[in-house]
């Protein structure tokens, strides 16, 4: 085997797992579709003027008043489901990525700083993080959303509050191990400011486990947001995420109009499972104990 860059090797090993590669393609395609949604959908689902009740709750394949095929049927307002799903994906992805990135930034900083500072601050911070980790994230998010009220910002705040602790714990574990290494002592003995040592030297070396947590937590944020929206506690009605589309269709499911709930659900599952599969493969590759 010829020597290439670590990234190249990592990538080649990743490609050996066909399932993970397929999952990565799904994730990439979903993100692309979500970005391009306004250009590819047949109908703007938020343009109420283009909707007609006569088109409501039609099964997949129905040709509507406006003359195009509703491949996945229509919802209770006569909205084209495919368009609604792609716009819903946009919202779900935005919320999931924003919450994941914020939780990453806050959690990783907190964990690394705690490990670096040490002493009582470290003990207190990590005790708090542990306490929170033992408390179910969904309950925390539920209460926060209830207290903060509806809205995208509030929802993201609730998700971040529920998830930063995972990053903090992971970063702390990795940073504590790094802190003990010689190169950190060496860096500290130079006039480089301490915060630079944390951010330039310690944190970059904690990245691999954090990346794994990040993949899984983005999937978790998306699932959590969908769950909250399904329970009616997530985003406002004007921003129908996938969870809300599913909730809206739930009441029609018992009467056999399955597609209103099922197709948004399938899109959601596809996205979450794909992200998880990618994350699993990355974790396996980064775990030296499973290497042969």
């Amino acid at each position, binding site marked *: 085997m010829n020597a290439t860059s670590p990234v190249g090797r990592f990538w080649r090993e990743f490609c050996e797992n066909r399932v993970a590669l397929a999952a990565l393609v799904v994730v990439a395609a979903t993100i692309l579709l979500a970005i391009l949604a306004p250009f590819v959908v047949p109908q703007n689902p938020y343009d109420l003027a283009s909707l007609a009740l006569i088109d409501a709750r039609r099964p997949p394949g129905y040709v509507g008043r406006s003359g195009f095929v509703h491949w996945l049927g229509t919802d209770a307002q006569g909205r084209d489901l495919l368009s609604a799903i792609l716009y819903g994906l946009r919202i779900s992805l935005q919320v999931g990525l924003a919450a994941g990135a914020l939780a990453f930034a806050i959690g990783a900083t907190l964990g690394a700083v705690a490990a670096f500072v040490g002493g009582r601050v470290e003990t207190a911070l990590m005790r708090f993080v542990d*306490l929170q980790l*033992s*408390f*179910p994230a*969904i*309950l925390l998010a*539920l*209460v*926060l959303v*209830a*207290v*903060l009220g509806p809205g995208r910002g509030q929802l993201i705040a609730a998700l971040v509050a529920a998830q930063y602790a995972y990053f903090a714990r992971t970063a702390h574990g990795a940073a504590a191990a790094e802190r003990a290494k010689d190169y950190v002592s060496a860096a500290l003995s130079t006039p480089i400011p301490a915060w630079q040592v944390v951010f330039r030297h310690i944190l970059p070396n904690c990245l691999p486990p954090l990346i794994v947590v990040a993949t899984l937590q983005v*999937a978790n944020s998306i*699932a959590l947001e*969908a*769950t909250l929206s*399904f*329970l*009616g*506690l997530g985003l406002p009605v004007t921003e129908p995420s996938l*969870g809300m589309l*599913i909730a809206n269709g*739930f009441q029609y*499911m*018992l009467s*056999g109009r*399955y597609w209103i*709930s*099922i197709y948004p*659900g399938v899109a*959601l*599952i596809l996205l*979450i*499972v794909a*992200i*998880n*599969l990618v994350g*699993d493969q990355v974790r396996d590759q980064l775990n030296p*104990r499973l290497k042969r």
Partner: protein
Amino acid sequence: MLGFVLQRLLQALVVMLAISALVFAGVYGIGNPIDVLISPDATQAIRLATIAAYGLDQPLHIQYRDFLLRLLAGDFGRSFVFNMPVLDLILSRLPATLELTLVAVLGATAIGVPLGMYAGYRPDSIAARLVMALSVIGFSVPTFWIGLVLILTFAVSLGWLPAGGRGETAMLFGTAWSFLTLDGWSHLLLPAVNLSLFKFAMMVRLARAGTREAMLSDTVKFARAAGESDAVILRRHVLRLIAIPIVTVFGLEFGSTLAFAVVTETIFSWPGVGKLIIDSISSLDRPVMVAYLMLVAFLFICINFTVDIAYAALDPRLRVKGAA
């Protein structure tokens, strides 16, 4: 041992105090409960009287002190919506949730651990791959979505099982339980499966990872070298070696399953505390929210405590030297 227990109890007390403060600040401190308590067209006099009656004119720390004192007396307040003592309300709903959670977690462990062990023992077999695929689904697909699919499949399409409610119950210890009747079981099955899938996935992963590691250990090699069969090794050696993480997760997950029951109970109209909390969040029934959160925190601490004790029973290395 006594010192250990006392120390843990003290810790638990501190944690409960911290949680009560957080919950109080979060639920009472933010927003104005008075708007929920009285109708908007009430006169200013009634408004002030109500504020005084609930002690809302007092500074926050006095309110917190009163809140704690009432808690200690077992008074969690009255539900705004149901107009009954919150404690009674929650206790009347708790058995349904406990029953659902217990069936889900026990089922997930009883099925998940053997399957996970097999997947760890023969990681390349087709059966192991199937089990792992199932666990990926259980792990990543949101609970509410699985609930929908279960209802669509087994209640709507096939018509085998009911889509909601507790069904017929029977009395035991003065409480109504579904698991004592056949009809109750038919109602319990779908929500329990729904709730257990995540735990199942977790147990499978834990058991698989533990078994994979244990099978490569010298302990297992040595047992093999003594001629012990793989079945004996899995049952007697590996199961005991992986029992500790499994019991930990069992305990911790029992708590989080109680919380996750929120979703399942909503979908299956299961009249437990989870459904109660969702309803009280939408109606801003603060006393119920506070009591529920305190209760969940209390349960968590009890569970952690039990898990610590179970550790000592499972791992002889942790037992106090003098006792051995």
